[in-house]
């Protein structure tokens, strides 16, 4: 089963990369851009077909390695 993990900087946290992208977009004429946040996407392929088991396992992976709860939030999407 394939899983996509979305890792994003937590709300309220300074995101210098998102800010740089925001400034660049505005400078390019996309003046309507108000806020940009940059995170990352991690795709995993698991030898397990039970959706609930997969979700639980990947959430555990997020807590232990894929995301740092001090600075990031995560979302697990089974695809």
């Amino acid at each position: 089963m394939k899983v996509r993990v979305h890792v994003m900087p937590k709300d309220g946290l300074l995101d210098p990369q998102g800010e740089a992208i925001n400034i660049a977009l505005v400078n390019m004429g996309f003046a309507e851009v108000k806020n940009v946040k940059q995170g990352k996407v991690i795709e995993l392929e698991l030898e397990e077909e039970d959706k609930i088991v997969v979700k639980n396992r990947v959430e555990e992976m997020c807590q232990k390695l894929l995301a740092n709860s001090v600075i990031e939030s995560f979302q697990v999407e089974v695809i």
Partner: protein
Amino acid sequence: MTKVGIIIFPGSNCDKDLGEGLVATGFDVEYIWHKNTELPNNLDLIAIPGGFSFGDYLRCGAIAAKSPITEVVLKFAKEGGYLLGICNGFQVLCESGLLPGALVGNVGLKFICRQESFLVENSDSIFTSNYHPGQEINLPIAHHDGNYIADAETISELEDNGRVVFKYLENPNGSINNIAGILSKNKRVLGMMPHPERAVDKIHASNDGRNLFSSLLESFK
């Protein structure tokens, strides 16, 4: 002799500099590969050097924090062992949960490699006893992710209990309260962004790192 174990991860690159600095101070040094699951006997201190462990993939220090040796190092620290993490070593200590907070990208988005001025905020620790409180020192920094952040409660806890050891005089990276180095609750674990091992030799731009190593050596005598 006082013995220091220096942990080497793939991508560590300050291990030899740190070892040379410690040997020049009078320590006995043993290098430990990250796949080891046991520590050498009679270590007085463990040091995690700077570098780019595991290529800084995922997050700086994140993968090293899950290496086999790190589990043993955490146990060593939890049993009251002394531990020093420099630059990437500081990032590993935060990622492992041994020190609070996190080190994220510098606000200017640039890798910064230069001499910086620091204030010694707390000289009442085994790492800093040879500095005097409020002393201004010069040490080099070399990092892309040195922006220290933590929630407000953690920051006050650190500030109120003398756990902030070094502060930048002029903040280069966005760190909250100019924090450049912090201690664990039991004051036996120090994580710091500047490189004391690059400020010990007469050819270095400053020798202000010597006092950190000599503080440590004297405390073990």
